[in-house]
């Protein structure tokens, strides 16, 4: 049990370091703060994220 929790945390760490979107966290945020908004599907969320991330401005250096 402890092992799987550790792996989940490690995965979350890796995801955030690489700047990958965290769907669970996003819907948690929506439920908490914007209950009036509809919850996007995972697919929709991911697409929006990619558009926002590479939409404008440099994200990488030399």
């Amino acid at each position, binding site marked *: 049990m402890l092992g799987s929790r550790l792996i989940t945390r490690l995965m979350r760490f890796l995801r955030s370091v*690489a700047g*990958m979107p965290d769907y669970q966290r996003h819907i948690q945020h929506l439920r908490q703060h914007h209950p009036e908004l509809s919850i996007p599907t995972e697919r929709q969320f991911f697409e929006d994220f990619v558009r926002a991330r590479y939409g404008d401005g*440099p*994200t*990488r250096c*030399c």
Partner: protein
Amino acid sequence: MHWRKIGWLILAAAGAIAWGVLALHRGESISAAWLILAAAGTYLIGYRFYSRFLADRVFGLNDRRATPAERLANGRDFVPTSRWVLFGHHFAAIAGAGPLVGPVLAAQFGYLPGTIWIVFGVVLGGAVQDFVILFGSMRRDGKSLGQMAKEETGPMTGLLAMIAVLAIMVILLAVLALVVVNALKDSPWGVFTILCTIPIAILMGFWMKAWRPGRTLEASAIGVVLLLAALVAGRYVAESPTLAPYFTASGLTIAYGMIAYGFIASVLPVWMLLCPRDYLSTFMKIGTILLLALGILLVLPPLRMPAVTQFVDGTGPVFAGKLFPFAFITIACGAISGFHALVASGTTPKMLTRESDARLIGYGGMLMESFVAVMALCAAALLEPGIYFAINSPLATLGGSAQSAAEVIRGWGFTVTPEQINRLAADVGEKTLLGRTGGAPSLAVGMAHIFSNAFGTGLMALWYHFAIMFEALFILTTVDTGTRVGRFMLQELAGQVWRPLGRTSWYPSIVFASALIVAGWGYFLVQGVLDPLGGINSLWPLFGISNQLLAAVALCVGTTLIIKSGKARYAWVTLLPLAWLLTATLTAGWQKVFAVDPRLGFLSHAAALAQQVADGSMEAGRAARLIFNDRLDAVVTVVFMVVTVLVLLASAREWVLILTRRKPARVQETPFVETAYAG
């Protein structure tokens, strides 16, 4: 409390001793341990005391003030992120090929000048720049450098900053692409591995988009495994007489391939190629850098390069010019890098949970990058100097064979035999390493030395190609993201001339702007490939100058922020590095354009070529192209210098107006909101 003070004293003493050993050592070789110790000691002291001073006194970071991530939280780009995660994220975004290549090239002066500049440059300059811009952006809801320049100094400065960023982007992409071309030409192993990254990325893209939406980690794990498989398979391709010719390409072919790739990557939807590659290269980058640090600590290789070589007088083969100013523009990233100002005013400020986290992430993140630069310098300096110069000098200087190269290098006073040169090439699975300018190959040889000593004996060739793949992978990621970013900026600028061109999703506008950006860096890339001196010679200084001048622009903005917030008495924290940077970079720019020595000055080189045509020793058509390129490089350098001086003058005018109280000292910060976080 007492014990802590003693601890810091011991650390300071250890650092000072290490510096002393480095400076005074005379002999065959010195352990890299001294270099690491000197650097680490200085970083820790700088972080503990100087960044604390900046955070508390100069910026007045306030944990009671809510950050943009808290106030504007949307779970997507504004996300309060724990500080170590954000540290890793920010580091992955700022550390690229720059800190790896620059120090390797500057090793022609010996290991000492580069180390001093990297370590003290970062503590007093580079990390301050990143920190002040991150701070400024954090107080302005994550605004970009250009927007801050516009709001604090006026619309003209904003426009100039934007043009400067676009121009540096074009030069940056060209020179990084050239590094990859020089590493991959006539190398079927390398070409095969890098080509494989494209279908791997596309597979990952479909995985994340269509088959298993959002399973990004899963896709990345598959990508890394496939990448390593491609690396191993590359050896068989290179050794197969039927397959190898298909993957053996000249520099020019690879250059055109990269130009086509850059264009396609810029117009394709991001999920297909760009986003998966970005993840792949982030993981590879962090993993490899950790591995390199571990390897260096395990092996503590002896450094064979002298502390200072005779090339400080400006006669070096890797690039022309004396120690001052050229060491200070050759090493840009790692000591101070203007480009970071773009990242520090991009995604990172939107993710800070507490204001005080900006210290670890802005200042500390840059120290980390500087440490990468020190490791790269170690990897270059552990090579026999003769080998280092055989790899990094232009073919035109070395002559075509190992014999002629050994002869030339012996003339410089370094011993190397033709057998050594040939054996090394065979060891790493290449036909030749001679004249592979650009820094990546010699860094890869150094890394292969470290890795095979630390982790696996006899796998030199595999480690070499692993290092080449790692460098090429994230350079190509910079090329495709950079082209795309350049396209957006161009569209924004063009939109001010004709409205429809500014619509970033309008297809004709996308194709038009992408083609222009690709043509821009592609032109300089091809120029570099065709250059008889290998291109790095003229293009890397151009890149260094542009990057340092962008840093000067960022420091101008930083100074304005500090003065406007009523802290003029502390403005020296940005003014001192600014003064040094402008002195070194404008001198370098001036010399590159006007120096009488044709090896150094663009214009005198053009004149020398014209003379050769007049003598009949050079064909007129070929010379005309080279002369045009020299003049173009001169014009680009002058434009960079003029833009920077204009930004400086506009900023200085603001400073004087505020200091003489003709203008109120008022910053455009977002108003204070109390944080809801406890403690």
